[in-house]
Protein backbone atom coordinates (compact mmCIF):
# COMPACT_ATOMS: atom_id res chain seq x y z
CA UNK A 1 0.00 0.00 0.00
CA UNK A 2 2.84 2.38 0.87
CA UNK A 3 4.46 1.74 -2.52
CA UNK A 4 1.27 2.81 -4.35
CA UNK A 5 0.79 5.83 -2.07
CA UNK A 6 4.35 6.93 -2.69
CA UNK A 7 4.11 6.46 -6.45
CA UNK A 8 0.80 8.28 -6.74
CA UNK A 9 1.96 11.20 -4.63
CA UNK A 10 5.19 11.39 -6.62
CA UNK A 11 3.27 11.28 -9.91
CA UNK A 12 1.46 14.52 -8.98
CA UNK A 13 4.81 16.23 -9.05
CA UNK A 14 6.34 14.45 -12.05
CA UNK A 15 3.40 15.75 -14.10
CA UNK A 16 1.94 19.28 -14.20
CA UNK A 17 -1.21 18.23 -12.25
CA UNK A 18 0.17 18.69 -8.74
CA UNK A 19 1.74 22.05 -9.57
CA UNK A 20 -1.34 23.34 -11.42
CA UNK A 21 -3.70 22.37 -8.58
CA UNK A 22 -1.42 23.80 -5.86
CA UNK A 23 -0.79 27.00 -7.85
CA UNK A 24 -4.51 27.50 -8.61
CA UNK A 25 -5.43 26.92 -4.98
CA UNK A 26 -2.82 29.34 -3.71
CA UNK A 27 -3.62 32.03 -6.30
CA UNK A 28 -7.36 31.97 -5.46
CA UNK A 29 -6.61 31.80 -1.75
CA UNK A 30 -4.24 34.76 -2.11
CA UNK A 31 -6.79 36.85 -4.01
CA UNK A 32 -9.62 36.10 -1.55
CA UNK A 33 -7.32 36.66 1.42
CA UNK A 34 -6.12 40.02 0.09
CA UNK A 35 -9.59 41.28 -0.88
CA UNK A 36 -11.58 39.94 2.08
CA UNK A 37 -9.05 40.28 4.91
CA UNK A 38 -6.22 42.70 4.10
CA UNK A 39 -8.17 45.16 1.91
CA UNK A 40 -11.22 45.17 4.21
CA UNK A 41 -9.03 45.31 7.31
CA UNK A 42 -10.47 42.28 9.14
CA UNK A 43 -8.70 39.37 10.78
CA UNK A 44 -11.72 37.06 10.33
CA UNK A 45 -11.03 34.58 7.55
CA UNK A 46 -14.53 33.03 7.47
CA UNK A 47 -15.43 34.58 4.08
CA UNK A 48 -12.13 33.34 2.62
CA UNK A 49 -12.93 29.80 3.72
CA UNK A 50 -16.48 29.99 2.34
CA UNK A 51 -15.21 31.27 -1.02
CA UNK A 52 -12.62 28.51 -1.22
CA UNK A 53 -15.38 25.92 -0.88
CA UNK A 54 -16.36 26.58 -4.51
CA UNK A 55 -12.77 26.56 -5.69
CA UNK A 56 -12.31 23.13 -4.16
CA UNK A 57 -15.33 21.83 -6.08
CA UNK A 58 -13.39 22.48 -9.28
CA UNK A 59 -9.88 21.58 -8.14
CA UNK A 60 -10.57 18.20 -6.56
CA UNK A 61 -11.67 16.56 -9.84
CA UNK A 62 -8.26 17.53 -11.24
CA UNK A 63 -6.64 15.65 -8.36
CA UNK A 64 -8.79 12.53 -8.67
CA UNK A 65 -9.53 12.27 -12.41
CA UNK A 66 -6.57 10.07 -13.32
CA UNK A 67 -6.36 7.88 -10.23
CA UNK A 68 -8.11 4.83 -11.70
CA UNK A 69 -9.12 5.98 -15.20
CA UNK A 70 -5.51 6.38 -16.31
CA UNK A 71 -4.49 2.99 -14.88
CA UNK A 72 -7.29 1.34 -16.80
CA UNK A 73 -6.46 3.22 -19.99
CA UNK A 74 -2.72 2.43 -19.83
CA UNK A 75 -3.33 -1.13 -18.60
CA UNK A 76 -1.17 -0.44 -15.53
CA UNK A 77 -4.11 -1.73 -13.48
CA UNK A 78 -2.84 -5.18 -14.53
CA UNK A 79 0.31 -4.57 -12.50
CA UNK A 80 -1.72 -3.45 -9.48
CA UNK A 81 -4.44 -6.10 -9.60
CA UNK A 82 -2.05 -9.00 -10.17
CA UNK A 83 0.19 -7.95 -7.29
CA UNK A 84 -0.25 -9.39 -3.78
CA UNK A 85 -2.10 -6.26 -2.62
CA UNK A 86 -5.83 -6.13 -1.92
CA UNK A 87 -8.14 -3.84 -3.89
CA UNK A 88 -9.03 -2.06 -0.65
CA UNK A 89 -5.36 -1.24 -0.03
CA UNK A 90 -4.98 0.06 -3.60
CA UNK A 91 -8.03 2.31 -3.19
CA UNK A 92 -6.86 3.60 0.21
CA UNK A 93 -3.34 4.30 -1.08
CA UNK A 94 -4.66 6.37 -3.97
CA UNK A 95 -7.10 8.18 -1.68
CA UNK A 96 -4.37 9.08 0.81
CA UNK A 97 -2.06 10.38 -1.92
CA UNK A 98 -4.82 12.74 -3.14
CA UNK A 99 -5.58 13.80 0.43
CA UNK A 100 -1.94 14.63 1.10
CA UNK A 101 -1.84 16.83 -2.01
CA UNK A 102 -4.96 18.61 -0.72
CA UNK A 103 -3.41 19.10 2.72
CA UNK A 104 -0.29 20.58 1.08
CA UNK A 105 -2.59 23.09 -0.65
CA UNK A 106 -4.43 23.81 2.61
CA UNK A 107 -1.14 24.73 4.26
CA UNK A 108 -1.56 28.08 2.49
CA UNK A 109 -3.97 29.01 5.29
CA UNK A 110 -1.08 28.81 7.78
CA UNK A 111 0.76 31.41 5.68
CA UNK A 112 -2.42 33.55 5.69
CA UNK A 113 -2.55 33.29 9.49
CA UNK A 114 1.12 34.25 9.85
CA UNK A 115 0.61 37.30 7.62
CA UNK A 116 -2.48 38.28 9.64
CA UNK A 117 -0.52 37.98 12.89
CA UNK A 118 1.70 40.88 11.73
CA UNK A 119 -1.29 43.22 11.31
CA UNK A 120 -3.85 41.81 13.72
CA UNK A 121 -4.84 38.93 15.96
CA UNK A 122 -5.91 35.91 13.91
CA UNK A 123 -8.08 33.29 15.61
CA UNK A 124 -5.77 30.27 15.26
CA UNK A 125 -8.51 27.97 16.55
CA UNK A 126 -10.73 28.94 13.63
CA UNK A 127 -7.87 28.64 11.13
CA UNK A 128 -6.83 25.17 12.32
CA UNK A 129 -10.49 24.15 12.56
CA UNK A 130 -11.03 25.22 8.96
CA UNK A 131 -8.00 23.36 7.70
CA UNK A 132 -9.42 20.28 9.43
CA UNK A 133 -12.90 20.99 8.00
CA UNK A 134 -11.58 21.43 4.47
CA UNK A 135 -9.54 18.25 4.80
CA UNK A 136 -12.65 16.39 5.98
CA UNK A 137 -14.89 17.80 3.28
CA UNK A 138 -12.11 17.38 0.75
CA UNK A 139 -11.80 13.71 1.66
CA UNK A 140 -15.49 13.24 0.82
CA UNK A 141 -15.05 14.96 -2.53
CA UNK A 142 -11.86 12.99 -3.20
CA UNK A 143 -13.65 9.71 -2.46
CA UNK A 144 -16.47 10.70 -4.83
CA UNK A 145 -13.91 11.65 -7.49
CA UNK A 146 -12.05 8.35 -7.06
CA UNK A 147 -15.30 6.45 -7.42
CA UNK A 148 -16.11 8.30 -10.65
CA UNK A 149 -12.57 7.70 -11.91
CA UNK A 150 -13.10 3.96 -11.37
CA UNK A 151 -16.16 4.05 -13.66
CA UNK A 152 -14.35 5.08 -16.83
CA UNK A 153 -11.00 4.80 -18.59
CA UNK A 154 -11.20 8.37 -19.89
CA UNK A 155 -9.50 10.93 -17.67
CA UNK A 156 -11.51 13.75 -19.29
CA UNK A 157 -14.85 12.01 -18.67
CA UNK A 158 -13.84 11.34 -15.07
CA UNK A 159 -12.99 15.04 -14.55
CA UNK A 160 -16.18 16.36 -16.21
CA UNK A 161 -18.42 13.91 -14.33
CA UNK A 162 -16.76 14.80 -11.03
CA UNK A 163 -17.27 18.53 -11.75
CA UNK A 164 -20.93 17.86 -12.49
CA UNK A 165 -21.47 15.81 -9.33
CA UNK A 166 -19.66 18.38 -7.18
CA UNK A 167 -21.75 21.23 -8.62
CA UNK A 168 -24.89 19.17 -7.95
CA UNK A 169 -23.74 18.63 -4.36
CA UNK A 170 -23.19 22.37 -3.93
CA UNK A 171 -26.77 22.94 -5.11
CA UNK A 172 -28.36 20.63 -2.53
CA UNK A 173 -29.58 23.55 -0.40
CA UNK A 174 -31.13 25.24 -3.44
CA UNK A 175 -32.78 21.98 -4.52
CA UNK A 176 -34.08 21.39 -0.97
CA UNK A 177 -35.68 24.86 -0.88
CA UNK A 178 -37.85 23.97 -3.90
CA UNK A 179 -39.23 20.76 -2.33
CA UNK A 180 -42.78 21.28 -1.00
CA UNK A 181 -42.78 18.35 1.45
CA UNK A 182 -41.05 19.15 4.73
CA UNK A 183 -39.99 15.59 5.46
CA UNK A 184 -38.26 15.27 2.10
CA UNK A 185 -36.82 18.78 2.37
CA UNK A 186 -35.32 17.70 5.71
CA UNK A 187 -33.73 14.62 4.22
CA UNK A 188 -32.25 16.49 1.24
CA UNK A 189 -31.00 19.35 3.43
CA UNK A 190 -29.28 16.90 5.72
CA UNK A 191 -27.13 15.87 2.74
CA UNK A 192 -25.84 19.41 2.24
CA UNK A 193 -22.06 19.59 2.30
CA UNK A 194 -22.08 23.37 2.15
CA UNK A 195 -24.17 24.03 5.28
CA UNK A 196 -21.94 21.69 7.28
CA UNK A 197 -18.83 23.29 5.88
CA UNK A 198 -20.14 26.81 6.58
CA UNK A 199 -20.60 25.86 10.25
CA UNK A 200 -16.95 24.84 10.35
CA UNK A 201 -15.87 28.09 8.69
CA UNK A 202 -17.57 30.03 11.48
CA UNK A 203 -15.65 28.02 14.05
CA UNK A 204 -18.56 25.73 15.00
CA UNK A 205 -17.13 22.21 15.03
CA UNK A 206 -19.86 19.58 15.21
CA UNK A 207 -19.06 15.93 15.87
CA UNK A 208 -22.06 14.93 13.72
CA UNK A 209 -20.68 16.91 10.77
CA UNK A 210 -17.28 15.25 11.16
CA UNK A 211 -18.97 11.85 11.12
CA UNK A 212 -21.00 12.92 8.05
CA UNK A 213 -17.90 13.79 6.01
CA UNK A 214 -16.01 10.69 7.16
CA UNK A 215 -19.01 8.45 6.39
CA UNK A 216 -19.40 9.94 2.90
CA UNK A 217 -15.69 9.31 2.23
CA UNK A 218 -15.88 5.74 3.57
CA UNK A 219 -19.03 5.00 1.54
CA UNK A 220 -17.52 6.09 -1.77
CA UNK A 221 -14.20 4.34 -1.09
CA UNK A 222 -16.17 1.16 -0.39
CA UNK A 223 -18.15 1.65 -3.62
CA UNK A 224 -14.88 2.11 -5.52
CA UNK A 225 -13.56 -1.15 -4.06
CA UNK A 226 -16.75 -2.94 -5.12
CA UNK A 227 -16.73 -1.36 -8.58
CA UNK A 228 -13.18 -2.53 -9.30
CA UNK A 229 -13.95 -6.00 -7.99
CA UNK A 230 -17.16 -6.13 -10.02
CA UNK A 231 -15.25 -5.21 -13.19
CA UNK A 232 -13.08 -8.30 -12.66
CA UNK A 233 -16.22 -10.43 -12.74
CA UNK A 234 -17.84 -8.67 -15.71
Amino acid at each position, binding site marked *: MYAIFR*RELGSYFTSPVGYVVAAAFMIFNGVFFYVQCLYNGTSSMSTVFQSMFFILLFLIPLITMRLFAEDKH*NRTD*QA*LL*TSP*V*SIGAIVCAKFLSALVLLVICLSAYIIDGIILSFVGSPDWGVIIGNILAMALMGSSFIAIGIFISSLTESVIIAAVLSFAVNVLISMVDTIASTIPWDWMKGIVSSLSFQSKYNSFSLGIISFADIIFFLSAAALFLFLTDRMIDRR*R*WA
Partner: protein
Amino acid sequence: MIEVRNVSKRYGRHQALDNISFKVKKGDILGFLGPNGAGKSTTMNIITGYISCDSGEVLIDGKNILDEPKEAKSRIGYLPEIPPLYNEMTVRKYLEFMFRLKRIKLPMDEHISKICTDLSIDDVGERIINHLSKGYRQRIGLAQALLGDPPVLILDEPSVGLDPAQIIEMRNLIRKLGENHTVILSSHVLTEIQAVCDNIVMINNGKIAAAGSIDHLMGTGRDTTIVRIIIEGREQGIMSALKGIDGIIRVTSLGETERGCYEFRIESKKDIRRAVSRAVARTDYAIMLMQPAGQSLEDIYLEIISGNNN
Protein backbone atom coordinates in the same frame (compact mmCIF):
# COMPACT_ATOMS: atom_id res chain seq x y z
CA MET B 1 2.39 -26.18 -10.24
CA ILE B 2 -0.38 -24.54 -12.28
CA GLU B 3 -3.73 -26.23 -12.49
CA VAL B 4 -6.65 -24.83 -14.47
CA ARG B 5 -9.83 -26.76 -13.71
CA ASN B 6 -13.04 -26.48 -15.76
CA VAL B 7 -12.70 -22.74 -16.25
CA SER B 8 -15.45 -20.92 -18.14
CA LYS B 9 -15.81 -17.22 -18.84
CA ARG B 10 -18.53 -15.36 -20.67
CA TYR B 11 -18.50 -11.73 -21.86
CA GLY B 12 -22.15 -10.89 -22.38
CA ARG B 13 -23.33 -13.36 -25.01
CA HIS B 14 -19.83 -14.33 -26.08
CA GLN B 15 -18.48 -17.50 -24.48
CA ALA B 16 -14.80 -16.57 -24.20
CA LEU B 17 -13.74 -19.79 -22.42
CA ASP B 18 -15.73 -22.99 -22.33
CA ASN B 19 -14.80 -25.42 -19.60
CA ILE B 20 -11.06 -25.54 -20.20
CA SER B 21 -8.70 -27.60 -18.05
CA PHE B 22 -4.97 -28.19 -18.18
CA LYS B 23 -2.00 -28.62 -15.88
CA VAL B 24 1.55 -27.35 -16.05
CA LYS B 25 4.12 -29.32 -14.11
CA LYS B 26 6.89 -27.67 -12.12
CA GLY B 27 9.77 -26.70 -14.41
CA ASP B 28 7.76 -27.09 -17.64
CA ILE B 29 7.48 -24.46 -20.36
CA LEU B 30 3.99 -24.56 -21.81
CA GLY B 31 3.30 -22.93 -25.15
CA PHE B 32 -0.12 -21.37 -25.44
CA LEU B 33 -1.29 -21.15 -29.03
CA GLY B 34 -4.41 -19.98 -30.75
CA PRO B 35 -5.74 -17.44 -33.22
CA ASN B 36 -6.65 -13.90 -32.17
CA GLY B 37 -9.72 -13.87 -29.96
CA ALA B 38 -9.38 -17.57 -29.12
CA GLY B 39 -9.22 -16.89 -25.38
CA LYS B 40 -5.46 -16.96 -24.69
CA SER B 41 -5.20 -13.59 -22.97
CA THR B 42 -8.45 -14.23 -21.09
CA THR B 43 -7.00 -17.48 -19.76
CA MET B 44 -3.79 -15.76 -18.73
CA ASN B 45 -5.69 -12.94 -17.05
CA ILE B 46 -7.71 -15.50 -15.09
CA ILE B 47 -4.61 -17.46 -14.08
CA THR B 48 -2.98 -14.28 -12.75
CA GLY B 49 -6.13 -13.13 -10.93
CA TYR B 50 -6.59 -9.99 -13.04
CA ILE B 51 -10.11 -11.11 -13.95
CA SER B 52 -12.33 -13.77 -12.44
CA CYS B 53 -13.86 -16.80 -14.08
CA ASP B 54 -17.58 -17.60 -14.06
CA SER B 55 -16.93 -21.19 -13.02
CA GLY B 56 -13.98 -23.46 -12.35
CA GLU B 57 -10.81 -22.71 -10.43
CA VAL B 58 -7.14 -21.95 -10.85
CA LEU B 59 -4.52 -23.30 -8.46
CA ILE B 60 -1.00 -21.92 -8.30
CA ASP B 61 1.21 -24.25 -6.31
CA GLY B 62 -1.94 -25.51 -4.59
CA LYS B 63 -3.19 -21.99 -3.76
CA ASN B 64 -6.53 -20.95 -5.22
CA ILE B 65 -6.15 -17.61 -7.00
CA LEU B 66 -9.56 -16.40 -5.74
CA ASP B 67 -9.54 -17.83 -2.22
CA GLU B 68 -5.90 -17.13 -1.38
CA PRO B 69 -5.03 -14.30 -3.79
CA LYS B 70 -2.04 -12.89 -1.93
CA GLU B 71 -0.30 -16.26 -1.58
CA ALA B 72 -1.06 -17.25 -5.19
CA LYS B 73 -0.19 -13.88 -6.74
CA SER B 74 3.12 -13.66 -4.89
CA ARG B 75 4.17 -16.81 -6.78
CA ILE B 76 3.48 -15.32 -10.24
CA GLY B 77 5.44 -13.00 -12.49
CA TYR B 78 3.21 -11.72 -15.28
CA LEU B 79 4.07 -9.98 -18.51
CA PRO B 80 0.74 -9.03 -20.12
CA GLU B 81 0.26 -8.43 -23.84
CA ILE B 82 0.72 -4.68 -23.25
CA PRO B 83 3.45 -4.25 -20.61
CA PRO B 84 2.00 -2.39 -17.58
CA LEU B 85 4.45 0.51 -17.58
CA TYR B 86 4.16 3.91 -15.93
CA ASN B 87 5.43 6.02 -18.78
CA GLU B 88 6.36 9.07 -16.72
CA MET B 89 8.76 7.11 -14.47
CA THR B 90 12.39 6.24 -15.08
CA VAL B 91 13.15 2.56 -15.61
CA ARG B 92 14.91 2.26 -12.28
CA LYS B 93 12.16 4.06 -10.32
CA TYR B 94 9.52 1.90 -12.02
CA LEU B 95 11.31 -1.33 -11.11
CA GLU B 96 11.80 -0.09 -7.54
CA PHE B 97 8.07 0.64 -7.36
CA MET B 98 7.19 -2.83 -8.67
CA PHE B 99 9.69 -4.37 -6.25
CA ARG B 100 7.97 -2.67 -3.30
CA LEU B 101 4.50 -3.41 -4.68
CA LYS B 102 5.28 -7.12 -4.78
CA ARG B 103 6.63 -6.99 -1.21
CA ILE B 104 9.84 -8.72 -2.16
CA LYS B 105 12.24 -9.53 0.64
CA LEU B 106 15.48 -9.60 -1.39
CA PRO B 107 18.10 -6.79 -1.35
CA MET B 108 16.46 -4.32 -3.75
CA ASP B 109 19.35 -2.55 -5.50
CA GLU B 110 21.34 -5.71 -6.06
CA HIS B 111 18.32 -7.68 -7.32
CA ILE B 112 17.13 -4.99 -9.74
CA SER B 113 20.67 -4.46 -11.07
CA LYS B 114 21.03 -8.18 -11.78
CA ILE B 115 17.75 -8.33 -13.70
CA CYS B 116 18.63 -5.18 -15.64
CA THR B 117 21.97 -6.70 -16.61
CA ASP B 118 20.38 -10.03 -17.61
CA LEU B 119 17.89 -8.22 -19.86
CA SER B 120 20.39 -5.64 -21.17
CA ILE B 121 18.42 -2.66 -19.92
CA ASP B 122 20.99 -1.41 -17.45
CA ASP B 123 22.05 1.31 -19.91
CA VAL B 124 18.60 2.95 -19.81
CA GLY B 125 18.03 2.80 -16.05
CA GLU B 126 17.78 6.57 -15.63
CA ARG B 127 15.72 7.22 -18.77
CA ILE B 128 11.99 7.98 -18.80
CA ILE B 129 10.06 4.93 -20.00
CA ASN B 130 7.95 7.00 -22.39
CA HIS B 131 11.08 7.88 -24.39
CA LEU B 132 12.13 4.27 -24.96
CA SER B 133 11.59 2.01 -27.98
CA LYS B 134 9.06 -0.83 -28.04
CA GLY B 135 11.83 -3.38 -27.65
CA TYR B 136 13.10 -1.74 -24.47
CA ARG B 137 9.57 -1.38 -23.13
CA GLN B 138 8.96 -5.07 -23.72
CA ARG B 139 12.13 -5.97 -21.82
CA ILE B 140 11.22 -3.64 -18.96
CA GLY B 141 7.85 -5.42 -18.82
CA LEU B 142 9.68 -8.72 -18.59
CA ALA B 143 12.01 -7.29 -15.94
CA GLN B 144 9.07 -6.44 -13.68
CA ALA B 145 7.73 -9.98 -14.16
CA LEU B 146 11.08 -11.42 -13.05
CA LEU B 147 11.26 -9.29 -9.88
CA GLY B 148 11.31 -11.45 -6.78
CA ASP B 149 12.26 -14.53 -8.81
CA PRO B 150 8.70 -15.94 -8.78
CA PRO B 151 8.39 -19.70 -9.42
CA VAL B 152 5.67 -19.17 -12.06
CA LEU B 153 6.06 -16.92 -15.09
CA ILE B 154 3.17 -16.05 -17.39
CA LEU B 155 4.43 -14.38 -20.55
CA ASP B 156 1.97 -13.06 -23.12
CA GLU B 157 3.75 -12.41 -26.43
CA PRO B 158 7.15 -11.62 -24.88
CA SER B 159 8.95 -11.20 -28.23
CA VAL B 160 6.66 -8.57 -29.71
CA GLY B 161 8.64 -5.51 -30.78
CA LEU B 162 12.04 -7.12 -30.43
CA ASP B 163 14.57 -7.19 -33.27
CA PRO B 164 15.82 -10.59 -34.53
CA ALA B 165 18.91 -10.58 -32.30
CA GLN B 166 16.79 -9.69 -29.28
CA ILE B 167 14.26 -12.41 -30.16
CA ILE B 168 17.05 -14.99 -30.07
CA GLU B 169 18.25 -13.55 -26.76
CA MET B 170 14.70 -13.68 -25.41
CA ARG B 171 14.31 -17.32 -26.46
CA ASN B 172 17.56 -18.24 -24.77
CA LEU B 173 16.48 -16.36 -21.68
CA ILE B 174 13.09 -18.11 -21.54
CA ARG B 175 14.80 -21.46 -22.02
CA LYS B 176 17.15 -20.61 -19.17
CA LEU B 177 14.25 -19.45 -17.00
CA GLY B 178 12.49 -22.73 -17.73
CA GLU B 179 15.26 -24.60 -15.94
CA ASN B 180 14.02 -23.42 -12.56
CA HIS B 181 10.65 -21.78 -13.29
CA THR B 182 7.28 -22.95 -14.52
CA VAL B 183 6.48 -20.90 -17.60
CA ILE B 184 3.36 -20.35 -19.69
CA LEU B 185 4.29 -18.66 -22.93
CA SER B 186 1.77 -17.28 -25.38
CA SER B 187 3.03 -16.44 -28.84
CA HIS B 188 1.92 -16.18 -32.43
CA VAL B 189 5.43 -17.05 -33.53
CA LEU B 190 5.18 -20.82 -33.89
CA THR B 191 8.90 -21.30 -34.39
CA GLU B 192 9.44 -19.63 -31.04
CA ILE B 193 7.04 -22.00 -29.33
CA GLN B 194 8.68 -24.93 -31.10
CA ALA B 195 12.14 -23.78 -30.06
CA VAL B 196 11.32 -23.11 -26.43
CA CYS B 197 8.37 -25.13 -25.16
CA ASP B 198 8.06 -28.65 -23.78
CA ASN B 199 4.30 -28.87 -24.14
CA ILE B 200 1.61 -27.04 -26.05
CA VAL B 201 -2.02 -26.15 -25.46
CA MET B 202 -3.89 -24.99 -28.56
CA ILE B 203 -7.02 -23.04 -27.87
CA ASN B 204 -9.70 -22.09 -30.35
CA ASN B 205 -13.14 -20.54 -29.83
CA GLY B 206 -12.66 -20.77 -26.07
CA LYS B 207 -12.02 -24.53 -26.10
CA ILE B 208 -8.86 -26.57 -26.00
CA ALA B 209 -8.35 -27.82 -29.55
CA ALA B 210 -5.23 -29.88 -28.81
CA ALA B 211 -2.80 -30.42 -25.99
CA GLY B 212 0.35 -32.42 -25.45
CA SER B 213 4.05 -32.47 -26.08
CA ILE B 214 5.37 -31.04 -29.34
CA ASP B 215 6.67 -34.48 -30.34
CA HIS B 216 3.25 -35.98 -29.73
CA LEU B 217 1.48 -33.33 -31.76
CA MET B 218 3.98 -33.38 -34.59
CA GLY B 219 4.51 -37.01 -35.22
CA THR B 220 4.47 -39.87 -32.83
CA GLY B 221 0.95 -39.22 -31.78
CA ARG B 222 -0.33 -38.58 -35.28
CA ASP B 223 -1.90 -41.24 -37.48
CA THR B 224 -1.18 -39.54 -40.80
CA THR B 225 1.80 -38.44 -42.83
CA ILE B 226 1.63 -35.47 -45.16
CA VAL B 227 3.46 -34.96 -48.43
CA ARG B 228 3.62 -31.75 -50.42
CA ILE B 229 4.06 -32.31 -54.13
CA ILE B 230 4.27 -30.16 -57.27
CA ILE B 231 3.45 -31.93 -60.55
CA GLU B 232 3.48 -30.65 -64.11
CA GLY B 233 0.36 -31.66 -66.00
CA ARG B 234 -3.42 -31.34 -65.99
CA GLU B 235 -4.86 -30.70 -62.56
CA GLN B 236 -7.83 -33.08 -62.82
CA GLY B 237 -5.74 -35.84 -64.37
CA ILE B 238 -3.14 -35.59 -61.61
CA MET B 239 -5.88 -35.68 -58.98
CA SER B 240 -7.31 -38.87 -60.48
CA ALA B 241 -3.89 -40.51 -60.61
CA LEU B 242 -3.11 -39.61 -57.01
CA LYS B 243 -6.47 -40.67 -55.62
CA GLY B 244 -5.97 -44.14 -57.04
CA ILE B 245 -2.94 -44.78 -54.84
CA ASP B 246 -3.51 -47.24 -52.00
CA GLY B 247 -3.37 -45.75 -48.47
CA ILE B 248 -4.20 -42.17 -49.40
CA ILE B 249 -6.70 -40.46 -47.11
CA ARG B 250 -7.08 -37.10 -48.78
CA VAL B 251 -5.61 -35.15 -51.70
CA THR B 252 -6.01 -31.37 -51.67
CA SER B 253 -5.11 -29.17 -54.59
CA LEU B 254 -3.32 -26.01 -53.50
CA GLY B 255 -3.50 -24.43 -56.96
CA GLU B 256 -1.13 -23.60 -59.79
CA THR B 257 2.37 -22.65 -58.60
CA GLU B 258 3.93 -21.92 -62.00
CA ARG B 259 2.71 -22.31 -65.55
CA GLY B 260 1.28 -25.84 -65.93
CA CYS B 261 2.43 -26.99 -62.50
CA TYR B 262 0.05 -27.72 -59.61
CA GLU B 263 0.72 -28.17 -55.95
CA PHE B 264 -1.03 -30.88 -53.92
CA ARG B 265 -1.14 -31.83 -50.27
CA ILE B 266 -1.48 -35.57 -49.75
CA GLU B 267 -2.50 -37.10 -46.45
CA SER B 268 -1.93 -40.83 -46.06
CA LYS B 269 -1.68 -43.54 -43.46
CA LYS B 270 1.90 -44.45 -44.38
CA ASP B 271 4.81 -43.02 -46.33
CA ILE B 272 3.49 -43.07 -49.92
CA ARG B 273 6.30 -41.22 -51.73
CA ARG B 274 7.44 -44.29 -53.67
CA ALA B 275 3.87 -45.15 -54.66
CA VAL B 276 3.32 -41.58 -55.83
CA SER B 277 6.52 -41.67 -57.92
CA ARG B 278 5.42 -44.89 -59.59
CA ALA B 279 1.88 -43.64 -60.19
CA VAL B 280 3.10 -40.40 -61.80
CA ALA B 281 5.69 -42.29 -63.85
CA ARG B 282 2.87 -44.27 -65.48
CA THR B 283 1.41 -40.97 -66.82
CA ASP B 284 2.77 -38.14 -68.96
CA TYR B 285 3.10 -35.91 -65.94
CA ALA B 286 6.34 -34.97 -64.20
CA ILE B 287 7.12 -34.51 -60.52
CA MET B 288 8.78 -31.11 -60.05
CA LEU B 289 9.00 -31.31 -56.26
CA MET B 290 8.05 -33.75 -53.54
CA GLN B 291 8.78 -33.29 -49.83
CA PRO B 292 7.37 -34.52 -46.57
CA ALA B 293 5.16 -31.83 -45.09
CA GLY B 294 3.17 -31.54 -41.93
CA GLN B 295 6.35 -31.71 -39.93
CA SER B 296 6.28 -28.06 -38.96
CA LEU B 297 4.26 -26.85 -36.05
CA GLU B 298 2.66 -24.32 -38.40
CA ASP B 299 1.03 -27.10 -40.43
CA ILE B 300 -0.18 -28.88 -37.33
CA TYR B 301 -1.53 -25.61 -35.99
CA LEU B 302 -3.40 -24.76 -39.19
CA GLU B 303 -4.74 -28.28 -39.49
CA ILE B 304 -6.05 -28.39 -35.92
CA ILE B 305 -7.45 -24.88 -35.92
CA SER B 306 -9.13 -25.21 -39.34
CA GLY B 307 -10.44 -28.67 -38.44
CA ASN B 308 -11.76 -27.27 -35.22
CA ASN B 309 -13.52 -24.43 -37.01
CA ASN B 310 -15.13 -26.85 -39.44
